[in-house]
């Protein structure tokens, strides 16, 4: 029998728009704070943790294998290994499913998993030509050589390539993520007002969310407390959303900044173990990971990833799930998934606390946030089963099912 992985506790940072309250903290600081908060909240001895597995999409150049850097700085023992996983937007969930795979392989029983992303701190790159010129300049010794090296620069050399933009462009189809959403909207005939209505719903649902105690850990930046998500716009209206210009297809497009997920900083950490280890630690689990799947699809239509992933994981009808969380990369994309699924999802059960359109989408962390949020909702409503799914840039879909314990 496959061993089962239980989630003992989960903590996340506030999710804050890139360039806002958490911009001063890099991904390592975010991760250190959230792992430290998890250790503090659970009160476990760091020695019992077998491995730390974190998802991160844009790893900072000064912290390669960021999971290891975070583990050490959060006070986990040097002798305990750590590694970073990357499945684009699903990295935070990948950390959880990887822990399950390791548990099945008897390579550990107690894991810290989660995801971190500081989209405020995504690097800027110089072009290869510019880099070559900088190198020539640093090699130049005599004043003459230096002048020569400087003279080789052209204005274009100083306009950097934005790392974030590169990351959000599919290298195979060469479409920006927003353009893949436009494609789905066109092909599946998803109107602008339906998208805006879905976005508005996300903000209103997020605004009325009641957090569980300790769900969000405050962060401390420059003498100030940052305790709440700052992307939610409770004053959002259909009129305001309708006034926004399309971002990716200026003339005929329907995808706007208002009905897309936000670019955000945030981190999530969870303590997950075997059932036996949970009993040993004397902690009551929140829930169990009962299944998961990953599928590939057309990179140009990556938004439909959840369709294949959900149907592979659970071919029957979806009524048995009390909470369904589908990551809101784009309103058009979620609506496209709903249209394409064989079985219907009760709208009341879908993203009951809103989603990434309101909270933001720190790409490496979101998968783990969905797990945390789904489990807390099951406890708050005293229900038993949840389904979560994310579309993944590059043409993939992942899904997972959770049971309350």
């Amino acid at each position, binding site marked *: 029998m496959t061993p089962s992985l239980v989630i003992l506790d989960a903590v996340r940072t506030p999710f804050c728009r890139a360039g806002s309250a958490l911009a001063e903290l890099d991904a390592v600081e975010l991760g*250190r704070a959230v792992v*430290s*908060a998890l*250790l*503090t*909240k*659970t*009160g*476990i*001895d760091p020695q019992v943790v077998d491995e730390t597995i974190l998802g991160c999409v844009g790893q900072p150049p000064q912290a390669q294998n960021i999971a290891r850097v975070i583990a050490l*700085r*959060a*006070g986990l023992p040097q002798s305990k290994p750590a590694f970073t996983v990357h499945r684009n937007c699903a990295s935070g969930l990948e950390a959880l499913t990887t822990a399950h795979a390791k548990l099945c392989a008897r390579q550990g029983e107690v894991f810290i998993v989660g995801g971190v992303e500081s989209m405020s701190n995504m690097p800027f790159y110089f072009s290869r030509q510019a880099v070559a010129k900088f190198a020539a300049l640093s090699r130049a010794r005599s004043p003459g050589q230096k002048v020569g090296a400087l003279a080789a620069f052209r204005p274009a050399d100083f306009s950097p390539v934005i790392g974030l933009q590169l990351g959000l462009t599919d290298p195979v189809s060469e479409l920006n993520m927003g353009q893949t959403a436009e494609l789905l909207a066109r092909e599946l005939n998803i109107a602008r007002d339906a998208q805006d209505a879905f976005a508005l719903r996300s903000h209103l649902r997020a605004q009325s969310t009641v957090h569980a*105690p*300790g769900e969000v850990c*405050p962060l*401390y930046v*420059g*003498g*100030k*407390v940052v*305790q709440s998500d700052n992307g939610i716009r409770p004053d959002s209206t259909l009129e305001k959303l309708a006034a926004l210009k399309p971002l990716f297809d200026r003339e005929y497009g329907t995808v706007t900044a208002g009905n897309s997920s936000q670019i955000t900083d945030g981190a999530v950490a969870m303590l997950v173990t075997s059932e036996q280890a949970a009993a040993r630690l004397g902690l009551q689990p929140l829930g169990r990971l009962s299944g998961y799947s990953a599928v590939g699809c057309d990179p140009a239509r990556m938004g439909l990833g959840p369709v294949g992933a959900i149907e592979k994981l659970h071919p029957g009808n979806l009524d048995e799930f009390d909470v369904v969380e589908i990551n809101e990369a784009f309103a058009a994309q979620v609506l496209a998934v709903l249209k394409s699924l064989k079985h219907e999802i009760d709208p009341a059960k879908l993203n009951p606390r809103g989603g990434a359109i309101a909270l933001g989408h720190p790409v490496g962390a979101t998968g783990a946030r969905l797990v945390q949020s789904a489990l807390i909702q099951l406890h708050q409503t005293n229900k038993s089963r949840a389904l979560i799914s994310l579309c993944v840039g590059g043409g993939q879909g992942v899904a997972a099912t959770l049971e309350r314990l």
Partner: protein
Amino acid sequence: MNSLVLDPTHLEPPVHHHRLLRQPEAFHLHVDEKGIAWLTFDSPESQANVFNEATLRELDDHLDAVELDPSIHALVIRSAKEKIFIAGADLKAVRSLPPAEVDGLIRLGQAVFSRLASLPVPTLAAIHGACAGGGTELTLACDARIASDDNVTRIGLPETQLGLIPAWGGCTRLPRLIGLRSALDMILSGKLLSAKDALKRGLIAKVVPKDRLEAEAGHIVLSLTKSRPHRRFWDTLWPISSIIGWQTRRLLLAKTRGLYAAPLKALETVLTALRLNLETALELERTTMLSLAQSEATVRLIDLFFRKEAASKSSASSPHQISRVAVIGAGVMGSGIAQWLVSRGIHVLMCDVKPEAIAAGLARVNERLSEAVKRRLMTKQQAREAKDRLAVTAERVPLTSYHLVIEAATEDIGLKKKIFADIAPRVSEDTLLATNTSALGIREIATAVPMPDRVIGLHFFNPVHRMPLVEIIAHRETSDIAIGAAVAFSRAIGKTPVVVKDSPGFVVNRILTPYLMEAVKLHAQGHPAAVIDEAMLDFGMPMGPLRLLDEIGLDVAAHVASTLHLDASLLTPMIGKGHLGVKTGRGFYDHSPGIKHPRTSWAHVPWLQDQLADLMSDEAKKVLREDIASAAEIDLAMVLGTGYPPFRGGPLSHARVFR
């Protein structure tokens, strides 16, 4: 084991009478194939190397051997100790010997070091570990010095801090080596320099990694040419040296009010020695040293030094290794304690019910750490590691993984009992529970929990990073294990613990508060605040009583006074008006930004000083009679906890001498 290698043509080594006692050898001499004599100082059965008559004579004998052996081309002096090169002169000898023998010891040291300086072969000191006082003076008599880059390597002349002066050539040789201004700074401050700083000042020739120290020493010593440091040309010009002397004297008098003789004498000695030849200069060092060594102030400073050493010495490792501590309260004391602990390698959880208080506490910790980096007390990396050791929470989290909980909440017995009752069910079965109260009864707080034997008082002083004292308060039921663990912990984090009995105000606040209240009374009787404060500054206190009240906060002081059943009603009107001191911008003084308080020229009122000082001494006698702490502990606690003038020894020593 003695690897003394002598020229076989040489006759018997000279025999000194004391050698007949066959004391265990403190020096080992070994000559390698290149003709380098390696003289290793390694006092048997001791962690430190010190100079006393026996070790000086032994060194002298080895210098004989080096001088007489033509196969020796160079001499390197090193230490075999892990953390100490040479700690200096044996202070116990200086403290206990009759004057004639102290004189003999000074003469002997000077003679041996002068002999080292005039050896025909090049000499080098390879310094690793603490090199202080006489140790540094030995290296000054060598042709060159190099040092390891290790953290334990510290070089300096701390004599003036103990009421003495460097008299084995330090006052004479140091200015010739590094210049007058820099030498005065080292001698008068008594600071111990890191190898890097010593290199900058030109005191040493090179800083090398510890494992390269010997190889480098062997390499460098063979390339040395014999040279004697010369007086700097500038320093010999009388206007220059007199201007430096005048400036330094002025600063020194402003700082010490002329209460400390040693730095002033050191200054005169250094300035005069600069104009004299070596022998006359050494003669001056000797007579000055003799006049100081027997003075009351010096004897008291040395006694205090020994008491502090004894109180701070790490005991055998306690069964409870405390490496994880929870601090309750993120206020000034809580964050101060947390900052100190994380800087000393302890993992800390700082708890407060208010996230805003945590934010402010963290900001204070970060500010203090940045300041430490700026002042080069720690590296950036060390500061980051310290920050990483600090976790925070505003939630009611499990505390089972913490070995010690220190409650540092507001001074309110009801609140403290509530916190203890709240903590008790969350800790493990051997967690120590401490309160950082400054005056409240420990026994009373302990009634709130089912394990009173693990409850103890751990009274840190504000500002935590500057005040070396921790009062450890045991109530009747506190277990010996808990006391032992608290003492070992305080020492491990670099503080000096004094164990006292559970009685209102313990030692420091018990003695200080009546003195502060008396100052308030005198002020109410019409003596200006500045006059009262000046009187006590002249006594040697680091801060006048009324200014200190402004720093503490009048409300806090009134609360402590009421705990001690002292009348604080004179403070009530000021507290009512919100004049609480520095924190509200107004107390006995106006602390509005931009206002400066020039030193006043108020009429001196001599009886003020006596009356206030006597009050402290009288209260100290009561504390002693009530057996709350020993006389030595009371004096030490007052010096370390309040800055009571060290040269007066403490309130009890002061009373003994002057009454």
